[in-house]
């Protein structure tokens, strides 16, 4: 789990992580928001369903795939938060036809 340090980086942007409002600093990524929210996993792999959290935070590993604003399988570490952003866990493979 991670915590912000409001004394140096005020948490001013409200996003919804799995429906719960979370305040995060400006410039944080969606992946950071998931860690700050304390989720146990950001996704479960489509191969065996094992839980994962972001590994690299720099767009290399793709272990941060999440559903952002309704779009599945986005690299959460490459998406900067904006107010009201909805971030949800990715459970296995995405639904294609919804």
């Amino acid at each position, binding site marked *: 789990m991670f915590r912000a340090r409001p004394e140096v980086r005020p948490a001013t942007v409200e996003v919804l992580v799995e429906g719960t409002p979370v305040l995060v600093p400006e410039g944080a990524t969606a992946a950071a928001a998931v860690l700050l929210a304390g989720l146990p996993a950001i996704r479960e792999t*489509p191969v065996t369903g094992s839980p994962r959290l972001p590994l690299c935070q720099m767009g290399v590993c793709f272990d941060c795939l999440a559903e952002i604003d309704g*779009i599945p*399988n986005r690299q959460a570490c490459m998406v900067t938060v904006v107010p009201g952003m909805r971030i949800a866990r990715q459970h*296995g*493979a*995405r*639904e*294609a*036809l*919804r």
Partner: protein
Amino acid sequence: MAPSHAGMQTRGSDVIVVGGGLVGAAIAHGLRGEGLDTVLLDEGDIAFRASRGNFGLVWVQSKGFGAPWYQRWTRGSAGEWPGLAADLAARTGIDTALQQPGGVHLCLSEQEFEDRGRRMAQMQVEAGNFGLEYRMIRRDELAEMLPGLGPSVVGASWSPYDGHASPLALLQALHRAFTEAGGAYVPNAKVTGGTAAPKDFRVETAAGTFAAPRIVLAAGLGNADLAPVFGLNTPVRPQRGQVLVTERARTVLPMPCTTIRQTGEGTIMLGDSMEEVGFDTRQSPPVMAQIAQRAALSFPWIAELNIVRAWSALRVMAPDGLPIYDQSERFPGAFTANCHSGVTLAGAHARLLAPMIARGALDPALDPFSAKRFDVPRAA
């Protein structure tokens, strides 16, 4: 395991198969099953290898327009496939993900639909007593069969024979089954030269010299250069095909289409172009864009999916697009095998063709596939 280069003695066996792609591996697996001591020679990690870049259809409906013997051979192979898949699963534990639920060819305009209908009707006539079961299906009925069909689709041809499999699982399973049954798979062994005498063949490779009374050339595009050494003719050329693959999605497509199929893993494959560009395996974004466009017109929901992989690979094409199977007249015991549907025909190659090669003679049914068909003198 790589053979030791020390000493470099000649390695003898009953038969040498040149080329470890799907064609060579299927034949080698079949020959080993016939009890022959078989050596399978292949290039290394980097090679023109259609078997690593194909679309994975076990496809029947459109094969053999104007050549009903090819339709029969293809359908025979589709029929052999379940046995091959079961055999490979039992020997290796590898699931080749074979599914044969029938398949459709989507038509995106009335013109395409009419052309397709005429073609299928003509093939049915050509099939004669052998028959060809198919239906031209209009959009409304098709929409019941395929979820999320796009408004641009006017209809499709359907046949019950079609299916798909994992070509990579097939390749690995063939290699593994062959090796575990005692066959010798030798990578990094590009054949660079050879000598031929009736029932006495020798080939040179970086991994040593190999000799056998029988040899099968199944080196894909490499056959064009190898064949003349053994008194054979395989005028094959490369034809580029590009394929896009999406991320995994929960299963939605119940059957394969000619250019769109959902794999066992859930990824959706979109294919495949036909480009005459020689030995050029670069990718071209405009062609990729066309493939994507056709897919999105066929199934609009596919547009939302990420493309996680894409590639281009070279098909192994004969001038008339049909397979070439031959035994050398000058050097009996030398065979050649080439095709541009190595997944579809894997069943036939492993279970029909290999036994013929083991017996030393190709069935007369394969006569039309001889390269002699290209010898017809051209009108000036």
